[in-house]
């Protein structure tokens, strides 16, 4: 999302579905995982909209869908690519929209080679480093920075260009894993005459490249790869096309069904391209909704407890040759678009953290920021724990022993720690693995040999602390503390504030340079109540920021680069406008418009549909009277509409920036995507993604099928780890590949919540879904003698679990590449603790990551299934070893970069 449009968040809001003519849900099981959000889809259905659900299983969402398309797991790009092919071939795209708002007309440099030319890979692949060099993907004649994602890709080039004597040579600067990170990226000065062919006929213009790229994704190919009958596929395409254009809009909703793949980010890129071609972004009833699974996942990426981001999607600096603030900003900010004010945002952040200590002279304490050397995602951390290089671990409101991929490695990693702090409501599996984990049962670990000190802190519930969640539509909502937490239960706010206080007390007086960042830290928040809970309002006020004389800021445009303003997170600037907590606004829905702007606060600047400038044409008139959202009002000469315009309100549609202007001024009246370096939505991503400017179908890491579209079997730059407990399955067609014949997908149920920490301890929820089960088709049950309500054992190269058997017609076998394939469905909520117990599906999953987001591939793997319960104790591991031997798996199975099948 960030790379295509400029911001990493849903483009619309759930209530907007009521205006959709057609809703495509794929990679999400909305009715089960977001039931209350589904009411808005019911509103659309009540008004005549068509609901399409594409999912390997027939779920409760499919039960309410008008069209359900069962799909082979891991083949979504082939499916969406096929729709793009259909849209382009039948010239059903919204041509004016594409020309106006996307980089369709922009020309790409000659030295870009597409997957068509290189048999499945792009130009610039460095096989030894397992990464791409995006230099060859650039537009013709200029380097363009990405608004998000890997923004440091052209760091050296850019600094070298600008008198790069400072950065000597082009030595590979950091460790091989995550090499993609090391490149810098940045905005090029947006030459007014950026080469564009408005007719979009030029062979090297983005639109033609997209057309050629998806030419091979024909309906017949879709039938072969995805197992979707050709006529049904055409029906889906035609339905989407009929419901797009000036008069109608279609919406797409996805969730981890798309993200949790080794090509996850590219899934979303394909959907972005499709929605841009159909002209659905920024318009009422259109957009792409990312349905997040946790109360504040969007919040935890906006204000990220993530390794690669600072608050507001400012990238964490990488380690470069003697870098400083200027070099960093040159490397990552863009010349055009709001990202060009990066300095203002970053400096305000550094002032918020180190206050008076951050001065012009010391680069506002830029040096205090630790620097990255590649990817440090949670799975790299587990490897570091296993290698003894990471000894302390905080697990806060998460349950990796059940929720993370390859649960065994998670627990073995934790067994290698010096100390572990777990904060949760109850004794989850991640807190008690040393006492009753599967490894204790199998004898791999013995409690008395485990040296890890484990602290368990009871956590406060949402009703016992003040704070804000950011929901899936970028809306901050404040929840008030109803009562004080009982016993020693405390909120994380309390825990980290007091931990910081104790640490600073222990270091007071230290002159060691190492402790300077801690001692200079602005850490004095007012505390209240009998438990000395720090004031969440004060923290939100700091996030919102204030100006030189302490007045709360109202918008990120007010942020200065001279250190006079303070702001914890620039995209949240405005949440405390005129001193009131906007997130706590509760104006009832019936007293305001359907957009309901006065309930809570949405970032950026309380816009509910972002990029809404695109809902009006080149003259500022809505594309059609029935889909009007934001339009140009000639008398008031400003943008008006149902929502806060995602555009400079006073900039007319005909405005053309003077040559050489920078930043926001450089945006023309037609640049609806104000965060992008060229103000346009990216069909083609010249930078920002490590695995290619255009989405390409690759088979999942573990797949029983060969990639029919290209010779390249898997994503060449996926992140893989050759480890003893992380073996991958052999390529299809090779010796031993028949050991794991069945595709498996994991998913959630309405009644439980992710790793079960907040649902398996509740009797009311556990009785609704009491035991771990697997869903199989009647044919598979017959083939493997599985007994309905009996037990089954499921095996992969990583582990073995048992599950009750649910034989159901809803798991339709599919005809893929000429053979009948039976898919297995596994919910992943269960674990060894809690009121309702069971085996965890994540014992089976491998760690193979998407190179951009480092998310694990648990939605598409392969495995074997047999009747009966699994062996106990060490016999379970023996069974896995036996399978590994029979499949001829070695340490480099499935590790290849370039590899046909």
């Amino acid at each position, binding site marked *: 999302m960030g790379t295509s449009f400029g911001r990493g968040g849903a483009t619309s809001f759930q*209530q907007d579905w009521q205006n959709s003519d057609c809703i495509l849900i794929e990679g999400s099981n909305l009715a089960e995982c977001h039931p209350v959000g589904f009411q808005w889809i019911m509103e659309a259905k009540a008004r005549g909209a068509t609901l399409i659900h594409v999912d390997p299983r027939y779920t409760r969402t499919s039960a309410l869908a008008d069209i359900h398309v069962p799909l082979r797991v891991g083949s979504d790009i082939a499916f969406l690519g096929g729709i793009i092919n259909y849209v382009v071939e039948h010239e059903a795209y919204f041509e004016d929209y594409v020309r106006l708002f996307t980089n369709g007309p922009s020309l790409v440099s000659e030295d870009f080679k597409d997957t068509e030319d290189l048999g499945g890979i792009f130009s610039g692949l460095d096989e030894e480093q397992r990464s791409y060099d995006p230099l060859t993907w650039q537009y013709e004649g200029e380097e363009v920075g990405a608004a998000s994602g890997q923004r440091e890709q052209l760091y050296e080039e850019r600094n070298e260009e600008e008198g790069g004597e400072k950065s000597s040579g082009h030595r590979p600067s950091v460790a091989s894993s995550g090499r993609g990170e090391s490149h810098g990226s940045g905005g090029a000065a947006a030459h007014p005459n950026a080469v564009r062919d408005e007719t979009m006929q030029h062979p090297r213009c983005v639109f033609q490249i997209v057309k050629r790229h998806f030419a091979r994704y024909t309906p017949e190919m879709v039938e072969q790869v995805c197992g979707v009958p050709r006529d049904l596929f055409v029906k889906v395409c035609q339905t989407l096309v009929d419901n797009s254009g000036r008069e109608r809009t279609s919406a797409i909703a996805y969730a981890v069904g798309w993200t949790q793949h080794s090509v996850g980010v590219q899934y979303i890129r394909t959907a972005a391209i499709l929605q841009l071609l159909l002209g659905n972004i920024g318009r009422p009833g259109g957009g792409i909704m990312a349905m997040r699974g*946790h109360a504040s996942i969007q919040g935890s990426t906006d204000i990220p407890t993530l390794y690669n981001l600072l608050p507001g999607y400012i990238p964490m600096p990488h380690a470069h040759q003697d870098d400083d603030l200027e070099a960093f900003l040159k490397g990552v900010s863009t010349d055009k678009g709001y990202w060009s004010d990066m300095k203002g945002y970053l400096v305000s952040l550094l002032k918020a953290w180190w206050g008076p200590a951050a001065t012009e002279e010391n680069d506002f304490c830029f040096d205090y920021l630790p620097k990255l050397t590649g990817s440090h995602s949670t799975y790299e951390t587990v490897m570091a724990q296993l290698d003894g290089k990471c000894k302390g671990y905080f697990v806060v*409101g998460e349950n990796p022993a059940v929720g993370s991929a390859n649960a065994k490695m998670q627990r073995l990693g934790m067994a290698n720690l010096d100390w572990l702090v777990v904060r949760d409501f109850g004794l989850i599996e991640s807190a008690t693995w040393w006492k009753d984990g599967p490894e204790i049962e199998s004898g791999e670990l013995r409690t008395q040999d485990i040296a890890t000190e484990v602290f368990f802190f009871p956590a406060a519930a949402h009703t016992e602390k003040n704070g804000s969640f950011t929901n899936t539509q970028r809306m901050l909502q404040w929840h008030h503390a109803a009562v004080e937490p009982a016993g020693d239960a405390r909120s994380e*706010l309390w825990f980290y504030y007091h931990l910081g206080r104790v640490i600073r007390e222990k270091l007071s007086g230290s002159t060691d340079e190492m402790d300077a960042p801690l001692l200079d830290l602005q850490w004095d928040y007012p505390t209240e109540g009998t438990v000395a809970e720090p004031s969440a309002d004060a923290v939100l006020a700091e996030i919102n920021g204030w100006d030189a004389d302490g007045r709360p800021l109202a918008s990120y445009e007010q942020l200065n680069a001279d250190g006079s303003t303070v702001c914890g997170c620039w995209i949240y600037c405005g949440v405390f406008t005129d001193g009131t907590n906007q997130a706590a606004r509760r104006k009832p829905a019936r007293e305001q418009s359907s957009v309901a702007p006065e309930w809570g606060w949405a970032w950026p600047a309380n816009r509910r549909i972002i990029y809404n400038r695109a809902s009006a044409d080149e003259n500022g008139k809505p594309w059609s009277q029935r889909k009007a959202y934001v339009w140009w009002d000639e008398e008031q000469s400003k943008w008006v509409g149902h929502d806060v315009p995602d555009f400079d309100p006073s900039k007319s549609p005909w405005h053309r920036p003077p040559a050489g202007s920078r930043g926001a001024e450089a945006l023309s009246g037609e640049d609806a995507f104000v965060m992008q370096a060229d103000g346009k939505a990216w069909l083609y991503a010249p930078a920002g993604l490590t695995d290619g400017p255009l989405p390409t179908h690759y088979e999942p890491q573990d797949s029983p099928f060969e990639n029919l579209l290209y010779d390249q079997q898997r994503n060449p730059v996926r992140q893989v780890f050759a480890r003893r407990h992380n073996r991958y399955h052999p390529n299809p067609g090779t010796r031993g590949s028949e050991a794991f014949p069945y595709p498996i997908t994991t998913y959630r149920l309405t009644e439980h919540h992710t790793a079960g920490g907040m*649902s398996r301890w509740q009797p009311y929820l556990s009785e609704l879904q009491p035991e771990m089960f697997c869903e199989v088709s009647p044919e598979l049950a017959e083939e493997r003698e599985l007994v309905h309500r009996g037990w089954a054992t499921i095996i992969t190269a990583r582990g073995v679990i048992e599950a009750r058997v649910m034989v159901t017609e809803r798991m339709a076998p599919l005809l893929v590449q000429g053979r009948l394939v039976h898919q297995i469905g596994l919910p992943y909520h269960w674990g060894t603790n809690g009121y309702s117990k069971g085996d965890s599906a994540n014992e089976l999953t491998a760690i193979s990551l998407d190179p951009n987001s480092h998310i694990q591939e648990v939605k598409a793997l392969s495995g074997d299934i047999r009747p009966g319960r699994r062996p106990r104790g060490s016999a379970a591991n023996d069974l896995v070893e036996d399978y590994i031997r029979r499949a001829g798996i070695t340490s480099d199975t499935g590790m290849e970069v370039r590899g046909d099948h």
Partner: protein
Amino acid sequence: MVKSVCPYCAVGCGQNVFVKDERVVHIEGDPDSPVSRGRLCPKGSASLQLTTGETRRLEVLYRAPYASDWEVIDLDTAMDMVAERVLRTRREFWQWDVEGKRVRRTMGIASLGGATLDNEENYLMKKLYTALGAIQIENQARI
């Protein structure tokens, strides 16, 4: 009655939390919310049991190295012990630079979790961890 938001998924349903003499007695949907219009899913409806059920632990537990079971310790002692360990491990794994490039960080401490927490909590965590030099900070956004 206090206005709140459901802690489970990201739809962000409004919740009304009813309190009677210092105890949460009932939680139901907030009809004013434009997103949820007073409705809840099974998990949201079980929020009362989540927050007041007897499966909630209320005391701090500590497991000594090689110990076979928990022991209860008081909160402040635990806080002090954790602070000690953070400083010890931070120092033990401190790196000023890698391959000649300044990094100023510790690779010894990692953190996982954040998507179920408030924005303010995520903010303090990122602020403190960054000041400590810890960079292996992750949450469910990536799981």
